[in-house]
């Protein structure tokens, strides 16, 4: 029985008159992949935003590894070991792939004046080291990407951009990875490939926990250990994919069936 890495209890988020999260209870164990599904507007991305400090939490608490992360500013949440991708891909398209990955590495980089402005030979070594580890990570997702390390992110295909965004989130070895609809805009083949790579990477990082928001049920079925279904900001059901898919309440809410 692995320990709970993330525990959210009573999480409530309000936007003006709309209650986006309504007393949400959710937890994720170490090394587990939790699939988060639900109709549009059910609060999935809002949950990510609440965890990462982008939106204000009205009531409720969230704990990471026992520490209270409720209400922390995004950069502090990042420092605690949570990394994410965004529903609407948020790469810095003007910059190179390498620069984008280095944004993910930000908290581990040395920003001192000395090394950056004067002791340039040391910076040179740093850059080289980081480039090597960046290539290694990219290589796990695509054989062609490492060669494109210095190409601009804007010159990549959609699927390559998603790969880069995931690598950006992984590069600092987070405890918890939040993936927001990683398969959006991809063909089934591309999606399958991405998921294979993701599973392979996860196999090498047994203590990495993942929460993945998806609308593609095939993906959820394949990668998640457990599922949680949200509707109107509340958890509707929880369990394995098979259990959740059979649940009549879930089918009613999500698929509109009887």
């Amino acid at each position, binding site marked *: 029985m692995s320990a709970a890495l993330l525990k959210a209890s009573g999480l409530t988020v309000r*936007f*003006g008159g709309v209650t986006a999260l309504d007393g949400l209870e959710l937890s994720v164990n170490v090394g587990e992949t939790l699939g988060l599904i639900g109709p549009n507007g059910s609060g999935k*991305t809002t949950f990510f*935003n609440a965890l990462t400090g982008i939106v204000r939490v009205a009531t409720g608490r969230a704990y990471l590894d026992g520490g209270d992360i409720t209400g922390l500013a995004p950069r502090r949440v990042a420092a605690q070991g949570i990394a994410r991708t*965004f*529903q*609407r891909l948020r790469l810095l398209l003007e910059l190179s792939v390498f620069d984008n990955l280095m944004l993910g590495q930000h908290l581990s980089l040395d920003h001192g004046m000395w090394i950056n402005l004067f002791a340039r030979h040391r910076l040179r070594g740093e850059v080289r080291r980081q480039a090597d580890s960046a290539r290694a990570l990219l290589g796990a997702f695509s054989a062609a990407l490492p060669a494109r390390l210095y190409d601009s992110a804007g010159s990549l295909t959609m699927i390559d951009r998603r790969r880069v965004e995931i690598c950006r989130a992984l590069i600092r070895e987070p405890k918890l990875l939040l993936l927001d609809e990683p398969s959006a805009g991809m063909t089934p083949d591309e999606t399958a490939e991405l998921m294979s790579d993701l599973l392979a990477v996860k196999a090498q990082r047994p203590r990495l926990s993942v929460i993945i928001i998806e609308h593609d049920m095939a993906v959820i079925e394949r990668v998640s250990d457990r599922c949680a279904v949200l509707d109107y900001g509340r958890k509707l059901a929880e369990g394995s994919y098979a259990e959740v898919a059979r649940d009549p309440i879930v089918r009613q809410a999500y698929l509109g069936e009887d």
Partner: protein
Amino acid sequence: MARLGGQRVRNRKASTRQEVIVVDPGYLAQHLFNGLMLGVIYALVAVGFTLFFGVLDVIMFSHGDVVMLGAFTALATWIGLTDAGAASPSLLLFAMLVASIGLMALLGALTARILVLPLRQAPPMNVLLITLMTGTVLRESVRLFYPQGSNPKPFPRLLPTGAMEFGQFTLRFDSAILLVVGVAAIVSVHLALSRTRLGLAIRAVAQDSETASAMGIPFTATVLATFAIGSALAALAGLVNGLYYSEVSFNLGLLLGVIGFSAAVIGGLGNVYGAILGGFLFAALQTVGAVALPLASAYKDVFAFTVVIILMAIRPAGLLAERSAERV
């Protein structure tokens, strides 16, 4: 420059030097009236700013200079007509009104079409810079191409002269008329926005242009109409400004534009009532600064802008703003 955006106080009474400083109610009333007048002008300008921001997320830094250009258009119209022999003040006023409002509305729509709409996808800073430069172009064009453009020009007095005395306070008829006209214009804007179909279209586009288009509201036409209306208001503000101070100058738009922008920001960009409130608030700040500060009233602008900066530190989105949630 500081003079034209600021107050010219009429019938100012010097307070007598005594041990107890007696505040002359007439003096105060004069300042109050001036403040109201300024507030109306600022509100007219601020409403334009906020409308433009609402529909296109753009800050038209050239807006203040449109006010100036409206005043100059009116002046040129007057000069042209009087040279041709026209003499009736009401006819002249009417012609000036029509000319400045019409031409500025056209200019506003044109600017939107050529300079702003094409840059919708560009970084917002580019649009900001373009509107700043447009303002410079308008300002410099008047300075260079209007005869003796660098000198302030006298503006004709066309409203009924005469005044009423209330103790120490002199209420001039022309000022009262201008105040009424200004307020009426503001009220009309409110009514137009809330009661007409165009107003509805503008509000819809301001709130969510994609959905508005999906609902069949013509985006470009609405935007152009918004810019025309905002610029028409600017022209009116220019005309009122000219009639009140009996003078116009090529750089009157610069300070006025910044003030109008500040007013719109204080009230919360996108909120028309906020803009009106902001206009009067800024005028109040200037008035308080002029009355309360023992030193030169020139400091009133320093005072007012300092308060604006402080306000923005405390309430960055404005006083009446709604928070918009960013989608991630």
